[in-house]
């Protein structure tokens, strides 16, 4: 109250006395002029400075969000591709491992059977050799048995009867005995 009284004392109240102030035409010109000036300046500041700034800020942000979303999409696709490649490689590796195992088993089997065959062949050869020698020795022995028998017979006959037999008679006798 004191403040407004003090203000009222220092300021000259304008307008027509006894007229409701908002409807006092005496104040219209001044208010219109100042409204035009202030609102004009306000409109200029808003349309030239504030609105371009704000729309710029919002545009930059929405661009940024769009770009970030695109980047996310791209990275996700990359990750998916990497996962697919990994899975593919893993499947390949599994398949390879299987085939390698099969191959080496086959190879080992083949090698061992080849080795066995070789050993068997060698053994068979050696056996044949041995048999041949045995046969040879046997034949030799058999042939020598005849000679020994003749000799022995001639010696025994000589010792027993003091006679002397021809080789042909002895051989004939021995072979008839051997039969």
């Amino acid at each position, binding site marked *: 109250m004191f403040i407004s009284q003090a203000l009222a004392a220092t300021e000259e*109240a*304008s307008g027509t006395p006894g007229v409701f*102030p*908002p409807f006092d035409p005496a104040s219209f010109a*001044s208010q219109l002029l*100042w409204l035009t000036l*202030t609102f004009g300046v306000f409109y200029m500041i*808003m349309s030239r400075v504030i609105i371009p700034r704000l729309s710029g800020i*919002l545009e930059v942000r929405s661009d940024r969000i769009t770009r970030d979303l695109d980047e996310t999409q791209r990275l996700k696709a990359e990750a998916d591709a990497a996962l697919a490649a990994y899975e593919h490689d893993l499947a390949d590796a599994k398949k390879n491992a299987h085939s390698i195992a099969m191959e080496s088993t086959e190879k080992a089997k083949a090698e061992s059977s080849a080795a066995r065959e070789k050993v068997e062949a060698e053994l068979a050869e050696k056996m044949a050799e041995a048999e041949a020698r045995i046969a040879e020795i046997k034949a030799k022995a058999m042939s020598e048995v005849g000679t020994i028998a003749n000799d022995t017979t001639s010696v025994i006959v000589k010792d027993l009867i003091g006679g002397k037999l021809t080789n042909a008679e002895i051989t004939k006798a021995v072979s008839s005995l051997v039969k």
Partner: protein
Amino acid sequence: MANDPISQFQLKTYIPLEIGGMDISFTNSALFMVATVALTSVFFIWATSGRGIIPSRGQSFAEMTYEFVAGMLRDSAGSEGMKFFPLVFSLFLFILVANMIGMFPYFFTVTSHVIITVALAFLVFFTVIIVGFAKNGLGFLKLFVPSGVPLAIMPLVIAIEVISFFARPISHSVRLFANMLAGHITLKVFAGFIVSLGSFGALGVAGAVLPLLMTIGLTALEFLVAFLQAYVFTMLTCMYLNDALHPGGH
């Protein structure tokens, strides 16, 4: 003088000016218009100076205001209406801040003077007429001819449409002015009761609690009205601008 509820609307001359017999003095009304413009501009320039991708509080508030008004305009006038955005944004902020500043005790409420709201309403009214004719030519007159009306009552309907169109600036301006004026008078009357009752001794002081509570409630209500009237004024502006762009569309 300071106790009557009308004195708050009294203009006071600070710097007397006169051109050609016209009184164009710098008054408290002019001062508060300058204050409204200065305060709003400084706030928005400060708030948007960072231009952060992640906004500060001030910037966030500025962006919300921008989105709020832009949404309002886009909803009523479509994306075509966005070329009026500077006008609508300026109107909304000017009225809102002028209303809010007026809520401070001893401060002058610019929008409580009918000449101000009439001027703003006519600004919108003439913008609508000029843009309407510039964009649609005589097709703008379709605004007065609603589609699907029987021919027999057409003249009556056109007459009503024409009257309602020319009544727009009146209703547009008086709504804002009357709300601000009435609200401030009511506040002042109830606040005056507190002082008057308080001078009647202890019983009076006890009784003064009632108008005090009323004043508190009314103050809250007036803050709501201050925002709501700025919103309504802007909303109607958007709808009128829509008529200028799409005259046949209602």
